[in-house]
């Protein structure tokens, strides 16, 4: 391991000293929050195990956006298609909201928006429709056929109106009425349509309305949706936490069994309210979540943060470079394997967290 990997308050430490310091800080805490950023499955597993051992809370740095989606799913349901299937089949793609290519720079290529669908029954160009987001994404503007320009604030009303048009419900007179009817008709003509949306542009009710539109369209043809939301990081944590505890992140272990409460176990709220008295941030990519520096922080990160609130800094390796592992890939909508490419000697998040756990309760080996 490189010599300059661990610090406490500006002082160089060995890895053993650093994990000792982290363990001491955790052991003395009443409520420790584990905030995961970019982290592979192994690191997430280790963090969840450590959180149970100290009665802590597990959250993910992008979970606010992820919960907007999850809340729709667990109250209403979802239609989901993989980007691969969308690229190969979709003859119609409805793009909703702004910043799509900013959130997902490879989106046009991964969804093959400029290509013919490989598995379509009749070779034809995809029909690209846009609702909102017209001011940005010039590449999308070139590809799109019909566009209904709108600011994000107007999208919930427009989506509701589009769903009403699709259901042949009367629409209040509006400037977009004809355009919406035209768009609804185009959606009905689809053989396999995909709605691609930016959750950052939409509130939960608007997302639910889009899923409802997909549900309505599926009564006669095939439709599904792709959310261009958070990176795969949130999903890695959500999935791992779900199989280990039964619940997604924002789960606490203070009562020695997992309790899930998206409000109560929101890391930002716990820190702001003073309920949390220790924070472990884990990110194997550069950058740590920005949080108010109120409590001691143990940072396991791929770069030194330089932040004054970081009591213990341990530099960890990067997945796919320093170590192999598994994380969630947006491109495939699945957990995928990564091999180490050029190990620089930094330890993985999992190994550091396991060492901290061993110092807190020796011998409590993982099963």
């Amino acid at each position, binding site marked *: 391991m490189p010599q300059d990997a661990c610090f406490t308050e500006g002082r160089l430490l060995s890895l053993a000293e650093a994990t000792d310091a982290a363990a001491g800080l955790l052991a003395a805490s009443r409520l420790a929050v584990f905030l995961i950023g970019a982290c592979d499955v192994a690191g997430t597993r280790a963090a969840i195990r450590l959180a149970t*051992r100290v009665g802590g809370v597990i959250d993910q740095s992008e979970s606010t956006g992820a919960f907007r989606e999850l809340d729709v799913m667990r109250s209403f349901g979802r239609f989901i298609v993989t980007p691969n299937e969308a690229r*190969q*089949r979709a003859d119609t793609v409805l793009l909703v909201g702004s910043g799509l290519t900013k959130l997902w720079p490879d989106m046009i290529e991964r969804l093959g928006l400029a290509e013919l669908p490989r598995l379509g029954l009749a070779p034809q160009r995809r029909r690209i429709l846009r609702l909102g987001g017209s001011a940005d994404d010039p590449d999308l503007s070139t590809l799109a056929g019909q566009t209904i320009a709108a600011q994000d604030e107007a999208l919930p009303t427009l989506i509701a109106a589009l769903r009403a048009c699709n259901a042949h419900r009367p629409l209040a007179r509006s400037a977009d009425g004809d355009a919406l009817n035209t768009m609804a008709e185009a959606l009905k003509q689809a053989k396999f349509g995909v709605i691609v949306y930016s959750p950052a542009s939409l509130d939960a009710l608007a997302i639910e309305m889009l899923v409802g539109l997909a549900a309505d369209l599926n009564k006669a043809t095939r439709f599904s949706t792709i959310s261009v939301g958070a990176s795969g990081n949130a999903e890695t944590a959500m999935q791992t936490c779900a199989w280990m505890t*039964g619940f997604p992140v924002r789960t606490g272990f203070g009562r020695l069994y*997992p309790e899930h409460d998206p409000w109560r176990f929101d890391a930002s709220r716990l820190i702001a309210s003073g309920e949390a008295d220790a924070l472990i941030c884990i990110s194997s990519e550069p950058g740590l979540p920005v949080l108010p520096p109120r409590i001691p922080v143990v940072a396991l990160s791929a770069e030194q943060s330089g932040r004054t609130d970081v009591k213990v800094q341990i530099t960890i390796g990067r997945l796919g470079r320093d170590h*192999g592992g598994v994380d969630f890939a947006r491109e495939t909508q699945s957990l995928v*394997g990564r091999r180490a490419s050029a190990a620089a000697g930094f330890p993985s998040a999992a190994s550091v967290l396991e060492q901290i756990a061993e110092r807190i309760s020796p011998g*409590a080996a993982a099963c």
Partner: protein
Amino acid sequence: MLTWLRGGRVIDPVGGGNRVRDLFIEDDRIVAEPLRRAVDQAYDATGKVVMAGGIDIHSHIAGGNVNTARLLLPELHPGQTPSSSKLPFSSARWSTFETGCLYAKMGFTTVVEPAMSPHHALHAHLELADTPIIDKGTLTVLGNDDFLLSMLRQGESASAIADYVGAAVAATRGLGVKCINAGGATAFKYNARAFSLDDVVPHYGVTSRAIVEALQQAVSDLKIPHPLHLHMNNLGIAGNVETALATIDAARGLPLHLAHVQFYAYGTEGKRGFSSAAARLAEAVNAAKNVTVDIGQVMFGPTVTVSLDVLRQYNGSRNARPNKSVIFDGDANGGGIVPYDYRRSDFYNAVQWACGLELFLLIEDSWRVFFTTDHPNGAPFTTYPDLLALLMSRDLRAEWLAEMPRSVAEMTTLGAIAREYTLDEIATMTRAAPAKLLGLADRGHLGPGARADIAVYDDHMDRARMFRDAHLVFKDGDLVVRDGGVTHYRAGRTLEARPLFDRAIERRLDAYYDEVYRAPRDLFAVHPDILPRTVRFEQVGLRQ
């Protein structure tokens, strides 16, 4: 370490019959009674019933769709029981850890996850790695994949198809091959709303029957012990017994396993057009010695249906209880997650319940009928003790039936069936037969050389109580359950078939993935070095 299990009623249909005798365990194996050796530990099994560890051949315990179900239904599994520090997450409801513990408590020591999509294989194996105590296996799902359907469209040879199937099983580390509504998920992407055995998959021009035959042949050619595990077309539809009968014919006398056949035992009689046709189906199974079946019994209560039969799941989503579902158009099969609440007072649900029991009781050969609820689709596996009690008592079945709508009894033959399963038949169905079906020579029996997976039960008259909490359970000779409580975790093995195939197919597959998925094929492969250190694979011998 030599362990003496003294004086139990040992039920071992393979070699030992049913008699009171001692068993000896040397480390992880059962051994013959050693001469002039001091035992290291002894357990008194007097008055107890001793069987090999149970084997579940079809239980959806891991994978992306199961995890989506967890996320969809947080209200289904709140828990308020603290876990001990020695058994972290063991009380976390519906977690992988709880799954391993609950199976062990019932005396089950090997469980097969039967629906592993190749592109989600890593996910399934990661969940299985966090499922303690029990050994696991997975079935690799094929039959809606573009590569296979394209091979069939192009008329490629059986050996080429076998190479592809072999490569898929090897990359995913499967124990066997499952096919789910062959071609149906793909047809659904072309907007088919029903798909039968002789329907043609759009774009590819191949029938469901042709896909099944090709996979059946490939599994046989690859010498994978477990025959093709088939989820047939038209699941859950009135009158679908005709599909099941046609599929048995389509097997052409070759080995075929039909999954959760209760869901295919429906006729169209009665004023509601829904009746039990279980007797007809059982008669056909009795006659077709090449066919094995598991039941997929319905038991009452809230659950969730999790299936890669996305066409069926979409059609079923209109009856979701509660009214929410996830329909996933994935690479190949995808999946559908639809919550459901089977109600005793619901005519259709009660007929389903009766259909399953009729099949259990009317299929004569307990070596060819397997004990499943298609967890969680028919019911959670935790209902197994109650189901065993029903199979063993005609009076108990009559009590249950009396609480159901009267019309249910008219639409089934259940009330007239006198058969009661014996403990020997239970041991065959849940131990010996599954081991034989999966090719696990050292499991399912208690002869010398067998793996020391042993369940010891109190011989209660209340059979549900007997099977709910085993008195003792040994896994690999290690005592893991005492009086219904798990004593400690240990890591189970993952069983895999590892068939032989011409690896030239892999270069072709690599090129296909680069072009079609725009990703290296290796991204999806299950390599042990990226799994937790505790994962141990065990190769199952191929058929000779």
